[in-house]
C-alpha cells in the first residue's frame, strides 16, 4: 500500500502507468471497440483521418486504420509480455546458476551468453523467424532468444556479490540444498533490478516485433503496428497517416514503458527512498 502511494507521487511513472493501462484495455476490448475483422475493406481507399466516419482514415485497400491500431495493440502487447517472460526465466536461471556456482560452470555459461551477445540481436531474430517461418510463436521465441543475455549478466552479477554474504554461508552451514539457497535465499534479493529491467525489455520486444513485421516477417494472420508502418511506407508522400498513426502508437507504448520502468527503478532504490523521506 505504501509502495503504491509512493509510486503515485512519481508523476512521470504514473503517466507511463496510465498510458499502459489504456493500451491494455484497448487490447483486451479490441473486438468490442472495433467489431469485425480489421483486414476487411471498410470504405473508400486512402481516406484521410476524420473523413467518411473513419477516425484515422483508411489505407490503400480501404481498411480502417483505427481498427488496425486497436487490434494491433493485442499483438504488440502479447509479443512484448510473453517474450519478456521467457527471456527473464531463461536469464534468471542461467545467471543465478553461473553466479552461484562460479568457476567452471560460470565460465561455460558466460561463454554461451557471450556467443549470443556478439551476434547483432536484430539480425539473429530475422534469421530465426525466417528459418522457422513467420508465426506469432516463432516471433516470440526469436525475440526471447535474443533478449535473455543481459538478464543473465545482471542476475549473475547480483549473485556474485550476494553469494559471499554471511547469510548464504549460514544457510550452507545449516545444510540447505543448493537449489534452496539459489531460489529461496538469494534470488528474492535480486528481484528489484530484474523487475525494472523487465519493464524496459517489454519496450524493446515491441520494437523488435514492429521491426520484424515492417520487414514482412510478421504473422500474416494478425494485424500489427509494425506491419501497418511497413505497408504504409510506400504511400508516405500521399497518405502520411498510414505509417504515422501506428508509429505513434509504438512510440507512445515504448515511452510509457520506459517511464514506468524508471518509476519502478526509483521506487525500488532504497537510497532514493531515503531521500524521499528526508
Amino acid at each position, binding site marked *: 500500500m505504501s509502495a503504491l502511494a509512493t509510486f503515485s507521487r512519481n508523476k512521470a511513472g504514473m503517466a507511463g502507468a496510465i498510458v499502459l493501462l489504456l493500451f491494455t484495455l484497448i487490447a483486451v476490448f479490441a473486438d468490442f471497440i472495433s467489431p469485425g475483422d480489421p483486414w476487411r475493406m471498410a470504405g473508400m481507399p486512402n481516406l484521410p483521418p476524420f473523413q467518411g466516419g473513419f477516425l484515422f482514415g483508411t489505407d490503400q485497400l480501404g481498411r480502417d486504420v483505427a481498427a488496425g491500431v486497436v487490434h494491433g495493440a493485442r499483438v504488440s502487447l502479447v509479443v512484448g509480455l510473453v517474450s519478456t517472460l521467457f527471456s527473464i526465466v531463461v536469464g534468471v536461471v542461467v545467471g543465478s546458476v553461473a553466479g552461484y556456482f562460479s568457476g567452471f560452470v560460470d565460465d561455460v555459461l558466460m561463454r554461451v551468453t557471450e556467443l549470443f551477445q556478439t551476434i547483432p540481436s536484430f539480425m539473429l531474430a530475422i534469421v530465426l523467424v525466417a528459418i522457422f517461418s513467420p508465426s506469432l510463436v516463432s516471433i516470440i521465441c526469436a525475440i526471447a532468444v535474443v533478449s535473455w543475455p543481459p538478464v543473465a549478466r545482471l542476475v549473475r552479477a547480483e549473485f556474485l556479490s550476494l553469494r559471499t554474504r554471511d547469510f548464504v*554461508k549460514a544457510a550452507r552451514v545449516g*545444510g540447505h540444498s543448493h537449489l534452496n539457497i539459489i531460489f529461496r535465499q538469494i534470488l528474492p534479493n535480486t528481484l528489484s533490478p530484474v523487475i525494472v529491467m523487465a519493464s524496459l525489455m517489454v519496450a524493446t520486444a515491441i520494437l523488435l516485433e514492429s521491426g520484424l513485421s515492417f520487414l514482412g516477417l510478421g504473422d500474416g494472420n494478425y494485424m500489427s503496428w509494425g506491419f501497418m508502418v511497413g505497408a504504409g511506407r510506400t504511400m508516405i508522400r500521399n497518405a502520411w497517416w498510414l505509417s504515422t498513426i501506428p508509429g505513434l502508437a509504438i512510440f507512445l507504448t515504448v515511452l510509457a514503458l520506459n517511464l514506468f520502468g524508471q518509476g519502478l527503478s526509483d521506487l525500488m532504490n532504497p537510497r532514493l527512498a531515503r531521500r524521499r523521506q528526508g
Partner: protein
Amino acid sequence: MNSVLKPVLEIRDLDIALPEGADRKLAVGNLSLDLYPNETLCVVGESGSGKSLLVTAIMGLLPYGTSIARGSIRFDGRSLERITESEYRRIRGSRIAMVFQEPMSALNPVLTVFEQMDEVLRAHGVNDGATRRQRIVELLTAMGLPDPEVLQHAYPFRLSGGQRQRVMIAMALALEPDILIADEPTTALDVTTQKQILELLARIQKEKRLAVLFITHDFGVVADIADRVAVMQHGELVESGPVETVLNQPRHAYTRQLIDAVHGLSREALPPSDNADRPILEVIGVEKTYITHVGMIARRKREVRALDHINLTLKRGETIGLVGESGSGKSTLGQVIVRLLKEDAGVIRFDGEDFSAMSPKRFAQIRPRIQMIFQDPTASLNPRHKIRRILTETQIIHGATPGEALARAREMLDLVRLDHSALDRYPHEFSGGQKQRIGIARALVLQPSLVIADEAVSALDVSIQAQVLELLLEIRKRLKLSMLFITHDLRIAAQVCDRIAVMRRGAIVEFDDSAAVMGNPQHDYTTMLLDSMPGKDWFLKEGRLS
C-alpha cells in the same frame, strides 16, 4: 599550561539538528569543547554518539539534511558556521586537516601516491614543481615509509593498510595545518600496525606542536595517546578532563562502562574439561593453499599458504581462542572446520569421525551439530526473511515439524533475551547487538555441540560487545557447548577462552592455557601482540590486566 594558552578551536553550546523523522532531534546537543595547541584531545563514544557528525561539522561538511541549529565553532577568530564555502575551502586541508578511518576508500585508487599529494599541494598554491616533489619525499620519509622515492609512484592498492594510513597522514600534514582531526584512524588496522600508527601520530604531534582531535571508541587507545578526554553519549558530552583523572576516577557510569570494556569481565573459573572423554574436534596436519591466477593470457600462479600444517584438539565443553591478525589464516581454519572450504591435506575428525571418510548422507546428519556465528550481524541475516523463518527454516529442513521448530525458536529467543514479538519482524528493524543475538539464536536452535564464532563481537560497540560476550559465556555454561572463538583481539580471547592458539601466516605459533599465553608468552610474535594492545601500559600499571 592550558589556562595560559588560547584554544585554537572553541566549540560553544553546539546543537546539530538531524532531519525530521530521525530517531532523535539533535545529533549533538549543547556541546562545548576547547582544543588547545600542542595537545591531543580524544573524543570517545560509540556508534550513534554523534562524534563523527561533530567532526564533519568542524570541517563544514555536514551531510544534507543536518545543520548547525545553535552555538558556534570558533577557529582563528572566526565563526566557522558563518563563513562562506570559498573561505572554508581555504581553511579545510591547509589549516584543519583530517585523517579518515578507512585508508583504502579515502585514497583515490586510480592515482599514484605522488599524484594525489601533488594535487593537494598545487590546489593550495605551491606552484613550483621542484618544491612540491621535494616536499612529498620529505613528508613520506618523515612518516617512516620505506624507500619513499620508489613508493611515491605506487598506486594505493600496492600498499599495506598501515602504509596507506601513513600516506593519508602525510597528505594531511602536507600544508602544515594547525589542527589535525583523526576519525578512528586505526580502527581498521591490525593491532601491531595500530601501535605503529599511534606512535607516529604521537611523535608528529610533539614535533609540530599540533592540536590533534582524535576520535575513537577504545579507551585503550585513549590511554596511549590522549592528553585530555571528552566522552560523548547520545550526542551529549557526559564527561571531560585530563586523561589521568578520567581514567583513574571516572565520574560518569558510561565512562566506567567503556573503561571496563578494555580490561574485561571478571571470569569465574570454568569446570575442568574431562580429558578422558573423546575430544569433540581433532585437526591433524591440515593444509590449505589459495591459488589465484594472475593475467589473462600468460597465466601466472600466485600461491598463498593459508593453513600450514595445523594441529588442534578441542575437548568437549572447552573454548579455544584462535587469535591472529588479518591474513593469519584463522578464518580459513574456521571455514574448513564448518566445511565451507575443503582442506588440501590433513584430517579433521568431528566426535571421532573423519570428515573426508563420511558419506554425504552421514554428513547431512552431522551438519546441524557444527554451527557458526558470523562477524557482520547485518550481512548474516537474510534481509527478505522474517526472524520466524530465519530461526525455523533450517530446523524444518532437518526434519522438525513446524510446531517443534517454532517452540525451539521461542526457547532460543528467551535464551538470548529477545522478546517473542521479534519473530514477526524483519532484520532491519533490529539494532546491531540484537541482530547478533538473533545470529547466535540461529546457530543454537539446531542444538549444535560445536560452535565456531568468527569475530562474533568485532562489529559491535564495546558496551554491546560486553553484553554479547557475557551472554555467550552464560550459554556455553548452560548448554555445555564446545566453542572455537576466532578473534583478532587478545583481550577478548583472554576473557572467554580456556586455551588460546596464536596464529601467524597460516601456522599456529603458540598454543597454551589462556593465563599462560597472556602472562608468560613463549613466542616473540605473541609478545609483540601483547605489547601492541592499546592502553597496555596504563592498564598494567593499574594492575587491572591479568
